[in-house]
């Protein structure tokens, strides 16, 4: 498990991965505990806002409006950022984004970079690309540091090491920071990280970040964080490289008044997170002298093109849906095989793969709607899940592929059987004979062979009755009662 990046192209299907994850009792305990705490905090600070629903509606409309005018706002951002001394780059896909960043880091003359936590860089596996050319990336967010030192993978959008408890974190720090005496109080662990990273903050000349928001009106960038590691990476290096999905743009500075109310309360259950930084281009007397922004598509325009799924792009990455999801809370994040786990991951990941991979994720949900209820920008995740299930089925039953599709063939056979009384009776008889070796002593079937196994993986099936209703009805008629 360790060291292998989460890649939807090679990840096992969700039901299999979930089964493995469910066997890890400690991980499940950690995830349940952390998501319980975070949900309670969120509920408290959301509850004190009399206008929470109005804020959500404004948030939804701002995001929807942005997507409808995305070309205009990206060009406006580019113009204003450039005017303020930033350099804007465009990347069609992950490969192009990695290439641009690697070249920029090389040009900065540094063989080391300090990084602010960024799911976008996780999405494109940037660290591996940097390491491949001899550039060491140092993660500076506490949770990302735990993941990096533990050679682990992120399991949550906001708190990537949520699946680890303090004893496990202590063990990693003791080993990797060479601190055999380290205690396991959270304060001890945070202090160790402070000392470990401070030297790097003061020395490394190149920083890499993601972005929470790009502001079209000013060309500014906003990053929301807690520890101050973000501020360190944004202000101390000589060169700063920011990578952002094209969906991260906001029309105006004023729109932050909505987002900065919705995001902290939804993400960490705080009225405001400790630090929000907003900066515009380059200021000769304050912060990096060289500033690059890489605007990355990487299939976001595919999502934009699907009108029913477009709202996926409205996401502001608060992870409230993960904390609320009864499926995520049981399996944790790794089972989703993607850095975007939970309900938002179940709709975002397959679409970022242009529906070629992660096809099992839209099914990784009971459609209970808890995700929709907590979403600060009102993304109707259940609606998109159903839409994507439909897409998966259509895609797999279309054309030649459909001819060989077992489920589609089975459905066609079922249709033929239901159309004829003779065939229906024969099928029922056959079914009773065929099932007999599978029925347990208790009359339940816990395992079905081959393709049918998917059904019994998560539920038991009752044995068919010895006598069908039809047979019983006919017998009754003959007996005259």
């Amino acid at each position, binding site marked *: 498990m360790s060291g292998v990046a989460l890649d939807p192209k090679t990840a096992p299907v969700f039901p299999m991965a979930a089964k493995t994850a469910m066997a890890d009792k400690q991980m499940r305990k950690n995830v349940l505990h952390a998501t319980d705490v975070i949900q309670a905090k969120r509920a408290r600070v959301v509850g004190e806002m009399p206008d929470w629903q109005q804020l959500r509606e404004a948030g939804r409309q701002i995001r929807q409006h942005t997507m409808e*005018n995305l*070309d205009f*706002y990206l060009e406006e951002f580019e113009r204003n950022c450039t005017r303020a001394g930033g350099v804007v780059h465009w990347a069609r896909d992950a490969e192009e984004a990695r290439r641009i960043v690697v070249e920029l880091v090389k040009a900065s003359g540094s063989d080391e970079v300090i990084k602010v936590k960024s799911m976008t860089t996780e999405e494109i596996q940037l660290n591996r690309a940097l390491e491949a050319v001899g550039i060491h990336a140092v993660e500076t967010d506490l949770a990302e540091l735990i993941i990096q030192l533990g050679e682990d993978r992120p399991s949550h959008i906001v708190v990537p090491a949520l699946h680890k408890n303090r004893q496990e974190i202590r063990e990693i720090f003791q080993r990797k920071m060479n601190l055999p005496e380290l205690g396991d109080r959270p304060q001890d662990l945070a202090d160790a990280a402070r000392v470990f990273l401070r030297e790097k903050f003061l020395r490394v000349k190149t920083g890499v970040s993601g972005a929470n928001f790009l502001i079209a009106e000013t060309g500014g960038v906003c990053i929301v964080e807690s520890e101050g590691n973000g501020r360190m990476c944004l202000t101390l290096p000589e060169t700063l490289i920011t990578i952002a999905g094209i969906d991260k743009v906001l029309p105006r*500075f004023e729109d932050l*008044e*909505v987002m900065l109310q919705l995001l902290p309360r939804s993400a960490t259950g705080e009225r405001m997170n400790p630090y929000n930084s907003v900066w515009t281009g380059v200021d000769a007397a304050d912060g990096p002298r060289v500033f690059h922004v890489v605007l990355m598509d990487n299939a976001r325009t595919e999502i934009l*093109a699907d009108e029913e799924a477009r709202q996926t792009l409205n996401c502001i990455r608060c992870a409230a849906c993960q904390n609320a999801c009864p499926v995520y809370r049981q399996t944790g994040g790794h089972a989703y095989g993607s850095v975007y786990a939970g309900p938002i991951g179940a709709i975002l990941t397959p679409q970022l793969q242009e529906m070629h991979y992660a096809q099992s994720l839209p099914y990784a949900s009971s459609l209970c709607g808890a995700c929709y209820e907590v979403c600060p920008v009102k993304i109707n995740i259940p609606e998109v899940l159903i839409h994507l299930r439909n897409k998966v089925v259509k895609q797999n039953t279309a054309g030649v592929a459909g001819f060989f599709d077992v489920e589609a063939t089975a459905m066609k056979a079922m249709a033929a059987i239901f159309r004829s009384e003779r065939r229906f009776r024969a099928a029922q008889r056959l079914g009773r004979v065929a099932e007999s070796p599978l029925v347990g002593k208790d009359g339940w079937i816990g395992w079905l062979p081959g393709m049918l196994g998917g059904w019994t993986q998560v539920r038991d099936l009752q044995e068919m009755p010895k006598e069908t209703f039809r047979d019983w009805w006919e017998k009754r008629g003959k007996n005259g009662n």
Partner: protein
Amino acid sequence: MATEMVTDPARSEILRRIRAAKGGVSSAETARTAWDGIERSYLRNGSRPVEEVLELLEDRLRDYDARVMRVREAEVATAVAKMMGERGVRRVVVPKGLEATWLPSGFEFVLDDGLTALELDAVGGVMTGATLAIAETGTVVLQNTAGQGRRVVTLVPDYHLCVVRVKDVVETVPEAFGRLEATAELATTFVSGPSATADIEMTRIKGVHGPRFLDVILAG
């Protein structure tokens, strides 16, 4: 730069994909009109009397483990001496343009004339003013202006003493953005309590990389 933008194939391709995806080009005019139509029925202005707003700010700051003192403008220097004395800090950095009457004697104030990060790391603390404070969220907003200085100055030292004038306190987040609109392009930092993390079992731990100690003096 302009020609480079036009000829960048990635840029043209992404913009082409976006326009194909949503069926057309968006102009400044359509975007502006549609933006004006966004429904904003959330609360923009607070309704509390001034005194309650100040109490709310004090309460919210203390909730983040910041310490707060409320004094008249003329008493700021005395309050600074008290706060720094209690923290055991003798020497702090100050940005250019900080109100001179706020500085008590008996302490050392090091003027930031472009100190390096290492030099800042060696100083115990920093004292600044603030652009404004938001009561509802317990937030102090700093900008790169006189009396507040470079972002790094309030980041590297371990102790931050911030003086906020009562007239600069607003109740809500939208009120703050209303005031910040004109200076939106300045480097701006929203500070809500000392540096913290909840990455270990979702327990809020005070003090990671930013200042571990924050004191606020409300003046006026």
